[in-house]
């Protein structure tokens, strides 16, 4: 890590950057809710792609390296697109909840939406609300002209099970009982071990990077 005066800037090698992207991509893919936005990773990856494309343009045509690099660019672009698409799908699917969560976020808490995603989510909500109002709601009896989208649109299912690999050893993770007969118990997560567990139990560990969803 490089520190620059007061700011903290992590300098990653391209390989580490791509690995961060892939980790963020897999986590986002398998998590039932929208995860923290990672603008730094996205920005760096885009820069990296531009850099690689510029290199490609300057290279000799017909050189074997050109194909390999081109392929690499395509792969990275795919992962980035897939990651952003996955987020958009979740934003659209849970839009009232996502917006509510962002609006009620405390000052120091990390954001789950980038500013652009926030704008997109707001537009999506306004667009849909206007549509429903104009097509149906305004024709309904006066006491039924409002619909609470927050109540009607389903929330993400945080109880769904996910597979994970442990990156940093964790001790005493509290697991809540599923049935009334069970009691809550604690488990230790060994580094390198793999588990199938309820998302809700390990959600903070995904955010901190202690586990990787697979």
């Amino acid at each position, binding site marked *: 890590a490089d520190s620059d005066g007061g700011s903290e800037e992590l300098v990653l090698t391209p390989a580490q950057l791509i690995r961060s992207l892939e980790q963020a991509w897999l986590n986002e893919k398998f998590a039932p809710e929208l995860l923290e936005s990672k603008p730094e990773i996205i920005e760096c990856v885009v820069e990296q792609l531009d850099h690689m494309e510029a290199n490609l343009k300057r290279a000799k045509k017909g050189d074997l390296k050109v194909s390999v690099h081109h392929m690499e660019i395509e792969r990275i672009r795919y992962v980035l697109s897939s990651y952003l698409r996955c987020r958009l799908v979740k934003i659209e699917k849970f839009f009232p909840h996502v917006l509510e969560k962002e609006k009620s976020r405390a000052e120091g808490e990390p954001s789950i939406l980038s500013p652009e995603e926030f704008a997109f989510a707001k537009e999506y909500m306004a*667009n849909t609300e206007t*549509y429903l109002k104009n097509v149906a709601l305004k024709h309904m009896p006066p006491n039924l002209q409002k619909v609470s989208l927050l109540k009607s649109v389903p929330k993400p299912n945080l109880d769904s099970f996910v597979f994970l690999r442990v990156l940093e050893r964790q001790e005493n993770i509290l697991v809540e009982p599923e049935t009334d007969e069970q009691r809550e118990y604690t488990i230790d997560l060994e580094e390198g071990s793999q588990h199938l567990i309820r998302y809700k139990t390990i959600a903070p560990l995904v955010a901190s990077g202690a586990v990787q969803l697979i």
Partner: protein
Amino acid sequence: RQALEEMRALYERNQADVSEAKSGRTDLIFLIRFRHCCLLRNQRCVVAYLYDRLLRIRALRWEYGSVLPNAIQFHMSAEEVEWFSRYKKSLATYMRSVGGEEGLDLTQDIKPPKSLYIEVRCLKDYGEFEIDDGTTVLLKKNSQHFLPRWKCEQLIRQGVLEHVLS
């Protein structure tokens, strides 16, 4: 529309009963509650139906691109067309904001890339098609070409080209 009519009729009947109930006839409360439940259910059904249509229209943007075929547009109401156009714009603004100068077209690269070039067969007459290095290819029905994958993606989705797997 029928559902709306039914709702209006039910509401009017309920209104009459509400004013009656206010004047002290408590035995009508159950009927009023029942009608209110029907109204709520109707509201939910109408909203669910409309929202489901919106989701399908949204899927069209991702499958067909920003210009919808006429046959599909014919089935959409004016408000749905408006919703689609606003959604398109919102998505375009977002895509432009990501990724450098030109933005990142998220409707491309839907599948992981297996190779740089692919063999495609033309299913309909499309005309001239320009590739990156300036050369143009004439896409006539049944002609086969070896083209860069990323250029073909949209045309494959639109049904103009077909990926030939040997």
